[in-house]
Structure formats: structure tokens, C-alpha cells
């Protein structure tokens, strides 16, 4: 299996309050990987570590097979990066920014860049200092898509954009992904947005990667169960019990790795499974976070 991004026990510490602990990310080539987490979870820090912008305290990082930060320029030659706060040189014109960017990437596609300029309704002669946040975000997306990278790393690319700009950016991204086998690593706290486009998902909370699995596994495998007469001690289960909460009449369990035949386990345990509730990505995400923060 080849991975576009691979970290092994990646750790980083910033002051006393924040620590990234032994993060093991594996992003398969060609995947659209949603990197989810609440604000302050460490998503942007992880992205900066992947980009070689921060030194890891321990652990290893490989991007497109290259060691980071040692061989960073080689990795960056095939990586498009949109930071959390897109910033280019304000005195430049849009066209100049495109020329500038193109000079660094041998595969930069001028024709595609011009096409995206139209799609995003950007004016070639506009000065960057006069662009709105949405326009700056779109310009940055234009630049990284036109460089035709093997890997796209997008850090909250639609955060703060109005709905129209957000739709334009996501549509262009999906359109681009449909043209080839680019790997996309997209960090966001906007869960419903990732649900539409990602096929893999990783969830980070308080600097720990709490889950990493295919999107269908996430959506289908995380369930909320209503259990009557639950056993006080739970031994081996065929699913992963994430959270257990008592209600006046029964218990609510949040489980991962759920499959329909597992209902039989409850008969054997003397419990009664009264309901299996499907969760969408957002609900699953919230339950995962609750579970990771309140171990039972």
C-alpha cells in the first residue's frame, strides 16, 4: 500500500497548553481525506508539521515518499497547499501572482489557470490588496489547482467564505479531483462539507488522532444503540463501545464497527437491543468527541 502522507508517532509541543501526541496518519494515494476536529484540536499544527513549517518533537513524517522536513522541496514540488489564512504578496496583481507561482512549478497549467480565473470571477488586473477574503481564497485555490499537484493539502479552505465562494471552491476542487488521481488532505471543522466530498476521514481531538477510517465505515459503522437490561460488566464485544450513558429506562451506547449480525451478541449477554440509530457524519463526529472526552 502506498501512502501520500504517512506519519509515525508524530509529536509536537507548543507551550504548556498544547501537545500533539503520537499521531499516526496514513493517507492513501488517491484518497480524499477529511481531517476533522474541533477548533484547537491541532489540525492546523498537524498541517504545518506536514508542510515542514514546524519541527516535530519526535516521530517521522513522509509526504509523497519524501522525508519531511529533510527533503521538503522535493515533496513541495508535487504538493499544492492552501493555508488557513491565504496570503500572497499584496502589491501584486492577480496575473502577476499567477506568473510568480507558475515560475516555481514546472507543471503549472496556464490554460487551466485562465479557465479557473473565469470560473472564479477573478479579475486578472486586480491588485491583491484589494481582494476580499473569499477572492483571496479562490485565487489561492486557483494557483494550487493549476500547478496540477499529486497532493493537495487544504487547511480550512472554505472557512470564512460566503456560501457562493464556498460552493465555487468546492466545485472546482471536485472537478479537479475527477480529472485525475490527486490525493486531497482537507482539514476542516465543517463536518457536513467533508461528508459530501471525502472518502476517508480522520478525527483529531486534543492533539490525539481518535479515529481514522473510510467514510463509509465511519457513516455506517458508528451507531447509537438503545439497550435495555444492559450487563453491568461488559466483556469482549464484536464492536467497539465508545460511550455508555444511562437513561431512566435503559442505556444509550455509541459503538464503532457495527454490523447487523452483531445483534445476536445482546441475546448472549442477556440484554435487549431496542433500537439501532444511524448517525450522519456530524452526529458520528460529535459522539466520537464525546466518547473520547468521557471515557467510561
Amino acid at each position: 500500500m502506498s501512502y501520500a502522507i504517512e506519519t509515525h508517532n508524530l509529536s509536537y509541543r507548543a507551550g504548556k497548553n498544547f501537545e500533539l501526541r503520537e499521531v499516526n496518519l496514513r493517507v492513501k494515494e488517491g484518497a480524499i481525506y477529511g481531517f476533522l476536529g474541533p477548533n484547537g484540536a491541532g489540525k492546523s499544527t498537524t498541517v504545518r508539521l506536514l508542510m515542514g513549517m514546524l519541527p516535530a518533537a519526535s516521530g517521522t513524517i513522509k509526504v509523497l515518499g519524501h522525508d519531511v522536513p529533510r527533503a521538503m522541496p522535493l515533496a513541495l514540488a508535487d504538493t499544492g497547499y492552501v493555508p488557513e489564512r491565504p496570503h500572497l504578496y499584496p502589491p501584486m496583481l492577480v496575473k502577476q501572482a499567477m506568473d510568480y507561482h507558475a515560475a516555481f512549478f514546472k507543471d503549472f497549467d496556464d490554460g487551466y489557470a485562465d479557465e479557473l480565473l473565469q470560473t472564479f470571477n477573478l479579475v486578472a488586473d486586480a491588485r491583491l490588496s484589494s481582494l476580499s477574503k473569499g477572492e483571496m481564497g479562490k485565487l489561492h485555490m486557483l494557483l494550487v489547482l493549476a500547478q496540477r499537484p499529486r497532493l493537495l493539502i487544504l487547511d480550512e479552505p472554505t472557512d470564512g467564505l460566503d456560501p457562493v465562494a464556498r460552493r465555487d471552491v468546492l466545485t472546482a476542487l471536485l472537478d479537479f479531483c475527477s480529472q485525475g488521481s490527486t490525493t486531497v488532505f482537507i482539514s476542516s471543522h465543517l463536518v457536513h462539507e467533508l461528508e459530501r466530498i471525502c472518502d476517508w476521514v480522520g478525527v483529531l481531538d486534543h492533539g490525539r488522532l481518535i479515529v481514522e477510517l473510510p467514510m463509509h465505515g465511519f457513516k455506517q459503522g458508528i451507531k447509537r444503540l438503545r439497550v435495555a437490561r444492559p450487563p453491568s460488566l461488559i466483556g469482549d464485544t464484536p464492536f467497539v463501545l465508545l460511550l455508555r450513558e444511562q437513561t431512566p429506562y435503559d442505556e444509550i451506547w455509541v459503538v464503532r464497527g457495527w454490523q447487523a449480525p452483531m445483534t445476536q451478541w445482546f441475546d448472549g449477554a442477556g440484554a435487549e437491543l431496542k433500537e439501532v440509530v444511524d448517525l450522519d457524519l456530524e452526529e458520528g463526529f460529535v459522539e466520537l468527541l464525546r466518547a473520547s472526552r468521557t471515557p467510561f
Partner: protein
Amino acid sequence: MLGNILKAQWTSARAIVIVFGILAFTIPLASVFYGGDLTISNVFQVSTWLATSRLVGQAIPITALALGVLLGMSAWSADHSGRHVYALSLPVPRWKFVLLRFEAGAILMAGPVAALGVGALLASAVVKLPTGIHAYPLQLTLRFAMAAMVMYAIFFAISIGTKRVVVGTLSAIGALILGDIALGAIGSSPALVEGAYRLLTHWPGPLAILMGRWALFDV
């Protein structure tokens, strides 16, 4: 790649280059404003003219200093506001990117240097000098280029650093001045500031090139 970086630097520093280009061109011409034919003047008039010319010439090191400082500081200003994120995402080794940036700034400096050279040559051409007095347009231009480059290199290096580096540098200077005042107040006179000044402005101090006479015309 250098061409694109040069263009980028030009967009943010063109005002500096143009203003200092005009200034550098004008100063040598201003130094000959008071005389055209000195062969018919007496010794006293020539001496006065030379003194005036040297006085005007003192604007040249100040111009070199300001040009170098401003170009050095402007080299990274756009990157600072974006916390260098964009530059760090480009597939160029960091040392190479820094070198390219430095080269671009040095090339931009060629404008004002050339302007000074042309101004100095014109000024030399319009004056008829008496025997024993010579014009040094080329030497003056080279010295101006060197001085501006030294200042550019120093401030390029300071401005590439984080705010912490800049604050650290300024704090060290402030501490030196305060230490000097404090020691002076208790009767000791270590002359810290004076010592530092001497260290910087006397050979082989980096600012030594700015010192001394800056005259287009001399014996």
C-alpha cells in the same frame, strides 16, 4: 525564477528605487551647482567651492544608508505579514530562496547606483577643474554601491528574522544605551555607546565605509 522574484520585489520596492534613483542622480549635480569654470577662479574661490561640494557630498552616504536600510527592510515585509507561509510552501530550498531574494534586492539597488554614476559623470563633465583638482565619479559610485550593499545586507539579515530577532536587536541597543546612562550616573564612565560606535564605524567595523570624506572632487 530570479526574474519573477525580482518582479515581485519591484512591485513592493519600486517607490524606494525611484525616489532614491532621483536623489542619487541629483546629489552629484547639486555639488557643482555653484560653479562651472574653476580654472579662472582664485585659490580661495576654489577652496570654498570644494568645501561646498564636499558638504553636499555628505548626503551621499546618508542616501546609501537609507537606501540599504529601506531595501533590506522591504525585502521581507510582504512575507512577514503572511508569516512566511506562502514562501515556505514553494518548492525551493530555504537557503536558495533567501539567496534569490537577496540577489533581487541587490539588482534593484543597481538602479540608484547607476543613477549616481550618471549624475557623477555629468557633474564631472560640466565643471572645468583647475590643475591639481580631480573628479572621482567612478570611485564615488563604487563606494556608494558598497555602502548601500553593506547596509542592505545588514538590514536584510535583521528583517528576515522573526519579530523576536528584531525586538532582541533593538533591546540590545536599548540596553547598551541605558547601561551607559546608568553607569554614567554613578560616576563611572565606561562610554559603552561611544565604544560600540567606534567599533562599528572604524575599520574593520561594518559601518566604516560610511565614514570619512565623500567628495566627487578632491585633490
